[in-house]
């Protein structure tokens, strides 16, 4: 039995349709309404069921969310970590490998071959990086890297470098700062050698062939 809720009257007249449902009007009070089920119409048993379905739905939503976003983060954040024992070669001069390495623990010794033998260029310590020239320029390795003691390295592949910059923008800053420092340092050494009247061959020995070549290429010829 449909009744008018404000007045309680049963004598109702039909008053058109609202979204496909019959509307009624109470002649006594003029109240217009649609006979839709209200909350009071749900049984007590239905309420826990609704809550249960809501919780299950929400759990599934979170589970799918974790599956997508959580795994994505893990997948992208997981860079390859490799371990080298003392004296083991990480890469050799002339290699065509492209990886760049960040030293997580231990040390890496960089050496370069010359006609007169091998010279020690630098020792890379924890937090520093090595092999960025091959990754940025896609050229063969210009020096050899060896592990000093037990060394752990994070490997950055060419495809992951930009993603790494996006996740860790200060890494890009540090890398640029380091490269800028190296250019300034090699320029200083070069001009110092020139001032001391050392021959070009000798400068090549001091500065290193690759750095000297790149300097010559970037210097406009008269």
């Amino acid at each position: 039995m449909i009744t008018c809720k404000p007045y309680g009257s049963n004598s109702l007249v039909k008053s058109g349709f609202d979204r496909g449902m019959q509307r009624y009007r109470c002649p006594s009070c003029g109240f217009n309404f649609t006979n839709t089920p209200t909350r009071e119409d749900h049984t007590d048993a239905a309420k826990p069921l609704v809550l249960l379905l809501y919780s299950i739905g929400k759990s599934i939503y979170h589970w799918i969310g974790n599956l997508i976003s959580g795994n994505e983060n893990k997948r992208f954040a997981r860079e390859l970590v490799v371990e080298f024992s003392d004296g083991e070669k990480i890469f050799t001069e002339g290699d065509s490998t492209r990886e760049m390495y960040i030293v997580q623990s231990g040390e890496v010794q960089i050496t370069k071959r010359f006609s007169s033998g091998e010279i020690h260029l630098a020792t890379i310590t924890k937090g520093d990086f090595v092999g960025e020239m091959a990754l940025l320029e896609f050229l063969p390795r210009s020096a050899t890297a060896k592990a000093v003691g037990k060394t752990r390295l994070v490997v950055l592949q060419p495809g992951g470098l930009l993603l790494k910059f996006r996740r860790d923008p200060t890494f890009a800053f540090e890398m640029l700062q380091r490269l800028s420092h190296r250019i300034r340092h090699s320029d200083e050494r070069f001009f110092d050698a020139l001032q001391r009247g050392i021959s070009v061959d000798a400068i090549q020995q001091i500065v290193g062939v690759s750095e000297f070549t790149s300097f010559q290429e970037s210097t406009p010829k008269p």
Partner: protein
Amino acid sequence: MITQIQSGKLIVISDLHLGSPVCRTKRQIIQFLNRAANQGYELCINGDGFEVAQVAFQKLAKDVPDFLRALKVLGNNGCNVYYVVGNHDIILENFLDDWGNIKIAPFLNVISGGQRIRIEHGHLYDPFLVRYPQLYEFLTRFAGLLLRASPWLYKAWIAFQNFSSYHRTKRDQVIHGEPRNFTIAAQELAQRGFDYIIFGHTHHVNEVDLGDGKRYFNPGSSMLDRSCVEVVNGKVRLLEWDQLCVKAPKTV
């Protein structure tokens, strides 16, 4: 520009927001700095030291001189003061340089007792700031107007953040109230050779174990908690201002 330093004894505080209507601890901050100076600590202000985004310069000019005097005392004691730029004082990036005993830096890599420590404000890892920088700036300025009307809105906002992240904090190992992105960023930095990572920005104090003995700290904001991170010869710990400033007992 300085980004690499060595320090044996360093104190890191964050998010002072001097000049903000919410910042009512100026006197305590100055007292804290004076005590730190007496104990020979170097100081690092990890971003948002000055509230440049939300308040007028006149208000800032009223609040800052005493603070700068306290920094000068540190300088006179031979201690360096490092200022890492945050998002509310990002204009200071124009002054990234060595200003006597105050050194302004975008971030700091500290070597202390053979440990590598990264100190960074952390706004670069705020997902909302990165996605919508202009909207973020607009909302920051708008929030400044609201806070002038009622500083209690700030505490309501922090309470809301704590409430909304309740389930997330229980599920993931993150600092209560802050997005997971900060812990992920800290893990990223830990992976490339940092032993301790110190961020600010979120105003939520806590520390998180990142595994392999590496830890992530957030000293929070002086507007809510009086916490700082102490670095002494490679040992890093989170403590209250009072714990640092305990006076030595008088000897008879």
